[in-house]
């Protein structure tokens, strides 16, 4: 565990922290250890994230695909023949002739998908958490049942949903038996999207519910009493005691929820396989360009990746700033 990685902290230290001498020695010692301790992660991230990222960015400036990349067929190694084409890929994605069909429609759907899912997660999660936070019989049992979707691996449950949503599956039989329409969940674009949101909501609510329940339980009960004595209505207590009391948990779970939903790959990928171009969000669409079609368009896929990363960097830095302003970050 204790990896030795000599870190040249002293020079940096002297340059950046002009402090009294006795503190200098102390901080030099501490920095040395700090660098040694973060070295493994910095190395991992540098090699496994930094380098591929740079490499990926270079690929976006080329016309690399599976036909012109370096590859091995039997014993023969064929060298890469793709060439540098500058920013053409980005131009084509953002305002080329098929920009709407390929990028913008998926972009809009990704935003709608993320917003809808996170709102549903949060609202349903909060309602269930508040119900579970009451003194009532059987709430432990309810809690255990309600976190089941979280306990079972997503790739298992998505297949369960696929069977249930099939044309003659159990959901349509139930809908049919009470005289409602039986949508083709896995074929019609609108219903595909509905199905995706449904399944993702089902998978994501337990995490929100449990996190918010933890938040609710940490709110001081005296606050409710005081509010009640002051004559606050149930709604006012919710608005002025519950919601502020949850704010730190909420900000975290909403951030995680947005990131996870925006990047949610497994649900859409497994639910539709290669069949639903309209229900693909940007992440799955990028994957499909790179690996789900022939020839594989590596350059385009990487360019989508870079665009996604740009969106997330903007989002995360805003959020980070917002957290810092609220003094929730050390």
């Amino acid at each position, binding site marked *: *565990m*204790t990896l030795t990685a000599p870190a040249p902290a002293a020079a*940096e230290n002297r340059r950046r922290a002009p402090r009294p001498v006795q503190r200098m020695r102390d901080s030099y*010692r*501490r920095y040395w*250890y*700090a660098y*040694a*301790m*973060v070295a*493994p*992660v*910095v190395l*991992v*991230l540098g090699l*496994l994230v930094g380098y591929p*990222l740079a490499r*990926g960015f270079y690929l976006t400036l080329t016309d690399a695909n599976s036909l012109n990349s*370096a*590859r091995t067929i039997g014993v023969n190694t064929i060298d890469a023949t793709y060439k540098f084409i500058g920013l053409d890929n980005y131009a084509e994605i953002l305002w080329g002739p098929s920009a709407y069909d390929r990028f913008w429609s998926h972009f809009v759907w990704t935003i709608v998908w993320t917003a809808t899912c996170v709102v549903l997660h949060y609202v349903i999660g909060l309602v269930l958490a508040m119900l579970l936070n*009451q*003194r009532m019989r*059987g709430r432990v049992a*309810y809690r255990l049942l*309600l976190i*089941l979707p979280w*306990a*079972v*691996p997503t*790739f*298992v*449950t998505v*297949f*369960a949903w696929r069977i*249930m949503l*099939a044309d003659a599956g159990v959901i349509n039989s139930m809908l049919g038996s009470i005289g409602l329409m039986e949508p083709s969940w896995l074929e019609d674009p609108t219903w595909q999207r509905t199905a995706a949101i449904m399944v993702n909501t*089902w998978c994501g609510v337990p995490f929100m519910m*449990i*996190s918010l329940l933890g*938040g609710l339980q940490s709110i001081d*009960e005296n606050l409710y*009493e005081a509010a*009640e004595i002051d004559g606050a209505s149930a709604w006012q207590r919710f608005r002025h005691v519950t919601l502020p009391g949850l704010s730190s948990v909420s900000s975290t779970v909403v951030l*995680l929820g947005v990131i996870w939903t*925006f*990047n949610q790959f*497994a649900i859409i990928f*497994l639910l539709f396989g290669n069949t639903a171009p309209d229900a693909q969000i940007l*992440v799955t669409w*990028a*994957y499909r360009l*790179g690996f789900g079609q022939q020839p594989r368009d*590596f350059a385009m896929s*990487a360019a989508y*990746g*870079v665009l*996604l*990363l740009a969106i*997330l960097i903007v989002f995360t830095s805003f959020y*980070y700033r917002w957290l810092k302003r609220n003094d929730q970050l050390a």
Partner: protein
Amino acid sequence: MTSSPSTLAPRTKQRRRGELGPVAKVASHVTLTVASLIALFPIVWLVYLSLGPDKDDYLHPGGILAKATLVNYSFVLTNTAFFDWLWSTLVVAGGTTLFGVMSAATTGYAVSRMRFPGHRPLMWVLLLTQAFPIAVLIVPMYEIFSQLRLVDSHLGLILVNCTTIVPYCSWLLKGYFDTIPIELDEAGMIDGLTPFGTFWRLILPLARPGLAVAAFYAFITAFAEVAFASTFLLDDSKYTFAVGLQSFISEHDAQWNLMAATAVLIAIPVTAFFYLVQRHVVTGLTAGSVKG
């Protein structure tokens, strides 16, 4: 946890609307029951369908009851690569956990305790990589790995999984270390321990629950990883469960019955494990990120 509704609340704590009105109580129970049924149903349905011997039984589930059998299970266990997949999954998830948690622990400690130059950028990078969409890395990784001959290898997959798990676990563990009083470190220093010694002998043992959560998170995440595993594993016998399960459903032949049985076999131990540790996971996940 549940007090009998008719007795008067003995403690002041229960004064706050301790008793629900009868309407509210019924409404709560109804809502929670419906929600529980929705949560439960897909799993129960999967278990039920796994008992039908024919691959089209899911289309007429009424018939399954009469001919329910465990034949799918025995077929999966004896005639498919189930145990190969199990081994692959354990290797990948175990390797990721070991490597990820170990490197994340020292980093979490360093960013929790030491304000070194570069501290802030590192925290920012950790937060950001957590948000990395797989699409950013998957193409270059594929290219690099094929040059290094790491495609179709478990090591490759472990390395890829670490890109998401290490940053998250670092944050999570930082949150946990923040809850351990810094006086302990100071006491250790005074007693002549180096920062490594303090970390290793004082803090790490205290952080065991946090480490357990990080390990659980890493294991589960690597266990269920779909995108990279689907792309980087080519050989049927090297599949993890997340890929193996897909292989029952191809365009030509969908063996839903076998798929359901395999899914149940996978889900049972994971779910049991999850229930054992869920309380800690919940605290760990939110503590780690709330305290930031």
